[in-house]
């Protein structure tokens, strides 16, 4: 069974669920924060590869994780967002503070 949370070096990869709403965001935020603060995590990578729905609760979750990672001296990125997800990221303006990649960028060393 595929893992939702994978740690690779100092990168925490979070495979987001099909629908990123308030219900699923709550679960992810608890687990992400537990993992990121317990280990030496520099990058938190949100993988939207399987995600078909996101609302402003998802945006709030991303912003919260971004703030936390900046506080810890790290950063976050979003990868493999489809068109619908891109639209929501753009509408929220979050794409101006968080790096959004269409694929999985090489420099992240995965």
């Amino acid at each position, binding site marked *: 069974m595929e893992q939702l949370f994978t740690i690779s070096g100092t990168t925490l990869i979070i495979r987001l669920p099909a629908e990123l*709403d*308030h*219900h699923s*965001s*709550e679960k992810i935020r608890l687990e992400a924060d537990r993992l990121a603060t317990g280990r030496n995590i520099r990058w938190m990578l949100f993988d939207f590869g399987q995600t078909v729905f996101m609302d*402003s*609760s998802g945006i*709030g979750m991303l912003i919260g994780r971004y703030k936390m990672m900046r506080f810890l001296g790290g950063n976050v990125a979003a990868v493999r967002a489809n068109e619908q997800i891109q639209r929501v990221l753009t509408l929220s303006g979050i794409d101006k503070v968080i790096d959004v990649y269409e694929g999985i960028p090489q420099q992240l060393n995965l």
Partner: protein
Amino acid sequence: MNQGERTMQQNEMKLEFDSRSCNEGFARVAVAAFMTQLNPTLEEVADVKTAVSEAVTNAIIHGYEGRVKKVEIFCRIEQETLFVEVRDEGKGIPDVELAMQPMYTTKAECDRAGMGFAFMEAFMDALEVESAPGRGTCVRMRKHIRHDTEQFPGYLDTETAKNMAER
């Protein structure tokens, strides 16, 4: 009978459910399924799902603040327009104008972005919020689904839709 359905102008549904976060997805899907009869595009369905999700989430977390009460959704189709109303009998909003400002939130500690109302406005054609402290909140939204006989995405009943378009 076919005739009657083709000229059908109005259709209504009402949904009432427990204010649990696990019902957010269910509420979106129900409204999306109801609107398929308008032959919406995938994008129009996504817009409505997002707006419904915002309003329902607000009822659950702001209106009832975790208590399990009832959220009500009322949908109406009139010609090519979808009307959606989301209601709670929760704590209400003291200043609606302030609450509707982008980035305004009273629950920043819960990672709320304050973008719920902004998303509803962006994804729907019209948004109206009625609320009174202690009496609950009613969000009314409207979206015109442009009728384009060229395009029938694959929801419930693609074939029937195609069939009707070919007549």
